[in-house]
Each structure stands twice: as C-alpha cells, then as structure tokens.
C-alpha cells in the first residue's frame, strides 16, 4: 500500500498522475497547493472519494489557504498525524 503526498493543485499533472496510481487501501495526504483538492462539493473531491483511498489534509496548510469547507470524507491532521501515517505505510510517493 502506498502513502501518496500531493503538493500541487487539482488541475496539475501531478494530481492526474497521482489519480492514475492510487487505489483502495492507499492513503493520500493533501499539502501545500494540494489542499484545494479537499474543498467540499467539488468534482475533484468526488473523484478522490471514488478512489477508495483514505483522505487527509494538513490542517495548517488548509487554514493558510483559506480552505475551511473541507469535504466530510477528508480528515484534518497535523504533522504528527502525517508521521503516524508513514509508520503504517511502508512506501511514500511524492506528487508535486
């Protein structure tokens, strides 16, 4: 299983490439410009939900970007929560 980290906006090729490889049982951490993929009631957030992966967003990054209406399927975590995920997932792929 792969822990994906996305640090690019939902219109980027990074996002596109990430979607190509993500699968059920994976997790994705949205950070930096990736937090815009967490906005509730968007096509992008629906696409992410459909992957079956566990969805997370770095709370500070979302706050800095003004992303407050976070999709219910996305959990807010701090950096410590991010570290916890890396303990569980043996592989990380950085998309940016």
């Amino acid at each position, binding site marked *: 299983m792969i822990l994906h980290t996305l*640090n690019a906006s939902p219109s980027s090729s990074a996002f596109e490439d990430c979607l190509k490889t993500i699968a059920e049982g994976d997790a994705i951490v949205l*950070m*930096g410009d990736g937090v815009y993929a967490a906005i509730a009631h968007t096509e992008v957030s629906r696409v992410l939900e459909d992957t079956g992966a566990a969805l997370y967003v770095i709370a*500070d990054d979302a706050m800095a970007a003004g992303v407050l209406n976070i999709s219910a399927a996305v959990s807010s975590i701090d*950096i410590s929560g*991010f*570290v*916890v995920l*890396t303990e569980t997932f043996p592989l990380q792929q950085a998309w*940016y």
Partner: protein
Amino acid sequence: MIYSLLVLSSPFSGHCSRTAAAFAHCVITRGHTVRRVFFLDAGTLASAANSVSAQDEDTSMKDWAELANQHGVELAICITSALKHGMLDQVEADRNERPFPTIDSLFMMSGLGQLVDAYANSDRLITFGG
C-alpha cells in the same frame, strides 16, 4: 524506525521545506531516528546563510538549527546542486576561487552517495518536493 528525508523544495516557495523540518521534529518526538536529511536541487537553498527575510516572516533556518544542534541530525546538501545555486562552504569557495562561503555551518556539503547511504539504511524515505 529509521527515517531519511529528501528535500527538493525551495525554502522560498510554498510551505514544503518547513513542513519537512516539522516532520523531522515529529519523527524524533515519536521515538524514531532521523538518519539524515538530504537536500537536492532547489532544496539546497535551505542552507543559504545570507538569505534575508522580512522581520515578521518565519524562516526554516531555526527549525533546521534545532534539528542539527539539539538532535544531532545530519543536514547534507548535494554539492552539485549547491554549487549551481551559489551555495558554497569554505572548502568549495577556495576550490572554485570564490571570495567567501555562503552556506550556514549547520549544513554539510555531500555527494549523492550520502543520499544512497541514507535510503539504503532507512526503513522510510520521505520525499518533500514542490
């Protein structure tokens, strides 16, 4: 577990370089070891000793300093990327006939072999880019 970090992000765009520093702190707080933080490409700019920021903006330097000084984490910068970005220690300044060093002494100029050594001897390699 043993972790190594690869930082490709510039400290001057986005939050990623600072996220990497915060991540390294949390890794240690949770009882793991950070074998090495390796800076490559624009990531090497984290070592810029003479970077001047607005007074009311935080820089990542103090986070890296704490990691290096309090936790003994090795901060290695890729020599080829560093030289290209104008980041030189005293040895490289002399060798390349430049007037003075430009990196903070927290950072160590290294070959990519140190990245290989880091990932080969770590349970986790976490990459920070963008």
